[in-house]
């Protein structure tokens, strides 16, 4: 990943709101994704982490057109859309594919493995004879024996099913695959195999990934950059080694410290207390402030913006001094 590559996907100020339940007497809209901006380059992997309810899955579903964004824009290879009608989304949708969390549920139990994979090929209007060859090739790509083609999902193990799901996603020749907790349901040993497979495919085809997980060690292993989401916003973003070893935002610190350490060091305990936020009724200012131990007076009145920190990552927190503002550090790594 040394060569400077082209921008593949850039998302600007993307917002996904859900209506509160019940038409006429609806309650406050739920801001599942609230002004998210990021960019992914060809052949790169972006990790997204956060608690459940942080909006990471909604973000993924918005990118593949399952949840309609309310505002913002998505552009794939410079092809920008900000009007999210079905017809506008279709060309973009083809470039983005998804591998889901639950390999027990993401394949139709009534379809054979070959039929499931072929579904992605039929979209490309391939003739029947080619479909057969292509299915075989795809099975080979995900390192499954061709003999599985006529089996049903029930007859496969979790890891095998996830390989089928990857093959099905690859069938449309996408530029980017979103893996939403794609290895979370698997055994640890199988998990490593799937991660390696994904990396092999990336090396061969130059595909990009968005990897959504609550497992920080997985993210650090597979992704170049990582974004931490909280209450629909990105609160910290940067190189994954940097963010996960030297977290700047209090929330990221809390997440990192909650990961059990293999060396037996206990580390700090998860410092924040309380429940994940109610998205329909967010606290004013920084959404994290009621749970934050270091919260200031401004935290409850003003929402912090993402700023570049001293370590080079970006974080949205009033406690953090922006890199630009600090007088020293002029000869920082940027000049090198």
């Amino acid at each position, binding site marked *: 990943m040394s060569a400077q590559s082209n921008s593949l996907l850039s998302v600007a100020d993307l917002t996904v709101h859900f209506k509160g*339940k*019940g038409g*006429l*007497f609806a*309650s406050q809209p739920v801001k599942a994704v609230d002004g998210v901006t990021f960019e992914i380059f060809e052949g790169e992997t972006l990790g997204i982490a956060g608690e459940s309810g942080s909006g990471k899955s909604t973000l993924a579903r918005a990118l593949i057109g399952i949840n309609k964004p309310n505002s913002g824009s998505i552009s794939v290879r410079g092809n920008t859309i900000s009007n999210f009608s079905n017809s506008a989304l279709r060309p973009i949708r083809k470039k983005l594919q998804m591998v889901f969390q639950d390999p027990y549920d993401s394949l139709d139990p009534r379809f054979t493995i070959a039929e499931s994979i072929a579904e992605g090929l039929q979209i490309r209007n391939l003739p029947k004879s080619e479909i057969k060859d292509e299915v075989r090739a795809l099975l080979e790509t995900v390192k499954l024996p061709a003999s599985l083609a006529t089996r049903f999902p029930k007859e496969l193990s979790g890891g095998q099913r996830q390989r089928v799901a990857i093959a099905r996603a690859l069938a449309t020749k996408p530029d980017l695959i979103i893996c939403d907790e794609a290895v979370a349901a698997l055994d640890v040993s199988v998990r490593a195999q799937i991660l390696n497979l994904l990396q092999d495919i990336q090396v061969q085809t130059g595909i990009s990934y968005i990897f959504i997980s609550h497992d920080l060690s997985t993210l650090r292993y597979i992704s170049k950059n990582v974004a931490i989401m909280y209450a629909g916003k990105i609160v910290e973003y940067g190189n994954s080694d940097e963010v996960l070893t030297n977290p700047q935002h209090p929330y990221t610190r809390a997440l990192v410290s909650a990961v059990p350490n293999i060396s037996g060091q206990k580390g700090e305990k998860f410092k924040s207390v309380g429940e994940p936020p109610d998205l329909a009724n967010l606290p004013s200012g920084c959404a994290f402030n009621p749970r934050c131990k270091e919260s200031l007076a401004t935290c409850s009145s003003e929402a912090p913006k993402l700023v570049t920190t001293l370590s080079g990552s970006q974080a949205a927190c009033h406690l953090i001094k922006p890199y630009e503002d600090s007088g020293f550090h002029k000869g920082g790594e940027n000049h090198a």
Partner: protein
Amino acid sequence: MSRWIVRRTAQMLAVVWGVMTLAFILAFIVPGDPARMVAGTNASPEAVANIRHQLGLDQSLLTQYMHFLGRLLRGDLGVSFALQNQTVGSEIWRALPFTAILAVAGVLWEILLGVPFGIISAYRPKSFFDRVSTFSALFGLSTPPFWLGLILLYFLAFKLSVFPLNGVGHPLIWYLILPSFTLGVGGAAFYSRIVRTTVINVLQSPFIEFAQLKGMPSGLILRRHVIRHALMPIVTMIGMDLGYFLGGVLIVESIFGIPGIGQLAFRSISTLDVPMITGTVLVASVFMVIMNFIVDVLYTFIDPRVRLQRNN
């Protein structure tokens, strides 16, 4: 919670409005000239035209529809065509007590037969009792109610003279035992099946196991946990059945000669008495809608989970 009630009420009113409109349409597709019917067969064309004007039948459809809704809102169901000088309201009012007592008695049969059989079956699944009761429940579901009513009449009233043969008299409840049993048998069969499934599920749940482990007497477990759970699905069905029965139970009423709303409706259809048809149809559906509403509200009191959901 209050927001939920407001929304639910609005929903109920929408359905009532839909039902009213359907009733209006129904009145229109019934053939025959209502004005001639009121005037009588020997009336002169002028008299018929006069009555048509009185009834407002010469106005546009929309005006008639608005008038119709306006009258209903004032609680005025109109005047019967067939029964001279009788308002639909008073006729329905006269028939209602018979239907109401019959309906309540029918639901009582459903509960009295359905719930105990269901619970006992669930406590002894696959036992002889369970097999017999499961099969009789299916039998009850598969028997046409009017056939059962006729057979009961034949043996218990005609052959053995245990019960009165027909009509109503004093004491009323004596005359309603066979009809209400006929009415309730199908529901009882259904209830026992539902209760059986529910109770089997409850008995297998961890909190019952826990109650047993901590030494709670089985009678107390039954009263405190099992019956409460078993009743939940039943509440819905009781409400629905009550609403349905209150609208008149045509067949049972006509087999046993009970002058309830069902008979009234049937008679009005055969005489093409349009105001009476729409009146009975409306009353029947409004009962249904209201009972549905009551069941929904009751649910929030019985089931804390539902309450929690509706509070948000």
